[in-house]
């Protein structure tokens, strides 16, 4: 997918990324375009989020990208008051799982949402957020 000599684009994912090289590095370019993408196996049709380069059913890597769109349903959430190294200044922050029907997505909530207003079953959408000039992430946002 990438063509540079050392394609370490994935180091740009999230606040702290321990991964830099992956066959799905194009995920980062899609984030830059404001798109959160999963993959779908062209051989068997299986959808994957997080995206994968390989299908464990077809045992091959014949994948296409597919955008996560629309509204999702909040499955569960938690607000953290302690954090691993690198996240201390973000505290408190809320992580959540949201079901978009064709796939589920794990991520952080937009800090603008009042954690007290959260209810499992509520509708949320997803959007790309630039943490700084280099790092990109996605966050769940309120549906107006």
């Amino acid at each position, binding site marked *: 997918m990438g063509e540079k000599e050392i394609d370490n684009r994935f180091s740009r994912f*999230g606040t702290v990324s321990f991964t830099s090289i992956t066959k799905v590095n194009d995920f980062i370019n899609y984030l830059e375009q404001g798109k959160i993408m999963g993959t779908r196996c062209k051989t068997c049709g299986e959808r994957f*989020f997080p995206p994968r380069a390989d299908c464990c059913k077809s045992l091959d890597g014949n994948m296409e990208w597919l955008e996560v769109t629309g509204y999702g349903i909040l499955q569960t959430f*938690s607000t*953290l*008051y302690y954090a691993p190294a*690198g996240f201390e200044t973000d505290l408190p922050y809320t992580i959540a799982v949201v079901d978009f029907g064709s796939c*589920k997505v*794990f991520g952080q909530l937009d800090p603008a949402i009042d954690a007290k207003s959260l209810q499992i079953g509520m509708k949320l959408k997803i959007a790309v957020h630039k943490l700084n000039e280099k790092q990109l992430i996605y966050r769940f946002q309120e549906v107006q």
Partner: protein
Amino acid sequence: MGKVGIIGVGQSRFVRSFRGSIRELAFEAFSEAMQDAALSTKDINASIICSAPEYDKQRSPSAVLAEYFGLNPQPTCYVESLCSSGTTGIRLAYSLVQSGLHDVVLVAGFQKMSEITSAESQERMGRGADIQWEAPFGTMMPAYYALHAQAHMTRYGTTLYDLAQIRIKSAHYGAQNDKAMIRQTLTMDAFVNPESKFTNPIASPLRMGDCCANADGASCVIVANEEKAKAFSRKPIWILGLGSATASVNMAGRNDFSGLAAAVEAGKQAYHMARVEPKDIDVAEVHDCFTIAELMAYENLGFAKPGEGAALIRAKETYAEGIIPVNVDGGLLSKGHPIGATGGSQVRTIVLQLRGEAGAAQVEDASIGLVHNIGGVGIYANVMILGRE
């Protein structure tokens, strides 16, 4: 095939900060198990060493420990499945014995996190989840269990009061266990008094009182085939059932957060192999790294129906006198959680119970016991059923 028995168990005291190296820590459990089984090193045909990775500095600790135990030239290796490493090691020891490769296999688990810095341990915790898709969001183990607690509370009406009852039971039995790290009893005041540290928020809805603490510790379990078990031991305890399962590391791969699917599957396998049912279990050790973990275990193992775990603890039915005594050694919440040593410590407790040597917390005439040991938030699950006959 013949039976496989446990003929020796040992455990170090679990402490905040052990004053020695990992080999010296592991030796405390090793020597206790060897003396318990009345064996000498030549009787051990192979060893398996279990710990969670990167919490100390020694790479490939199995060879270092085997040498310190005097177990060269017998084979050894390192086995890991996070917090369930100990019972994964015992499962593999069972298979090595049952396959005929070895007669007697020793499994030692240890953890000594106190020698790395707090910054180092924070960094490593960040790499316990999927480093590609979840660690970039700032995940930690309490938050993963909190996701499950939130779902359980919403779905079934479980409350912080119910969770506190589990910690109070733990403290009751921890006070009786001279190898436990935390030995003070607790009352509900600790969970309602806003001045109490136990009410500090960690990851909502979980509070400090819902969480176990890291500890330094070691455990050791010696497994033998039927012939050797009968020859070496007056009271061998038999491995009747073994179950093991996994679930996706990524939360996005899960369908339900009000229980651990891997624990349900591992439990089913173990009951099937042992040909027993939940009602046949006389005493259980479940993986209570968090209060919600014990509550989910009640339901996932069939001690209560889904959603009825809270009723079980409210009725005190998991105390030693109840219908299904659980964690009557204080559990991880009071003993502390030295990751690689935890599974072996759970098995030791059940072995002592089935031998009738469990002291103050002895469950009367316990003949069938169960161990439930979980790695990560149900990423790995092992269930083991042990019996006197």
